[in-house]
């Protein structure tokens, strides 16, 4: 699914990253705890969260998150948006709650991140 299709599905507003809407997305991770995101989310995943502080952007940068969807109509501060623009991470906002956002995406074939990322390391 492309980010553009996700935007339409969620009736979302693009705040940062209009030029990246053709990105292909296969996995998603929904969480409010950044340490969970750090432990479980896969590179290239969509991050669904109710948080809007700049650490959401930093966490996404560290993990190569494809795009962030802020749920429940949340809008980030200008500081958060500036950081997203600087680090080239798309940010969208949807009026749906996390439950509905994840439900709609799951119904369209997006899958979750099954294992701890460190379990999949190439060498042990």
């Amino acid at each position: 699914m492309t980010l553009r299709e996700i935007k339409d599905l969620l009736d979302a507003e693009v705040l940062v990253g209009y030029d990246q809407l053709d990105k292909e997305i296969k996995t998603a991770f929904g969480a409010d705890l950044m340490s969970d995101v750090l432990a479980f989310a896969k590179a290239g995943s969509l991050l669904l969260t109710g948080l809007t502080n700049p650490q959401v952007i930093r966490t996404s940068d560290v993990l190569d998150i494809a795009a962030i969807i802020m749920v429940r109509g949340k809008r980030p501060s200008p500081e958060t948006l500036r950081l997203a623009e600087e680090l080239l991470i798309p940010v969208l906002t949807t009026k749906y709650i996390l439950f509905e956002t994840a439900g709609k995406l799951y119904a369209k074939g997006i899958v979750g991140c099954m294992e701890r990322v460190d379990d999949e390391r190439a060498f042990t």
Partner: protein
Amino acid sequence: MYLEDIVKALNLRVVSGEERLSADVLGGYVGDLLSDVMANSKEGDLWITRQIHQNIVAVASLKDHAGIILIQGCEPAADTLDKARKEGIPIMVTDMPGFEVIGRVYNMLATKKGPDPST
């Protein structure tokens, strides 16, 4: 949609509140920040979270949630379990990641209520 239908369909392990599995699930809410869940979840919601400390029982009880699903292999803390058993709050656990749990619960509720419960 009864809680026990969801428990069966998702193969959830019930650790407390077995006597209340006939509760009607009216919706779902996902959140790990208690203040958010307090403010925005609704009565009859099935709450999906990874928080395990005993405050989740108080929140679920105050908000009259149908139950709590702990995701990603999270187990309730000992005092959480005690409190949930005392108050009869159903807690279910699963190894599935949150996204999948949400997706499946959402689809079950959506099929029950019609194509799009959010509009």
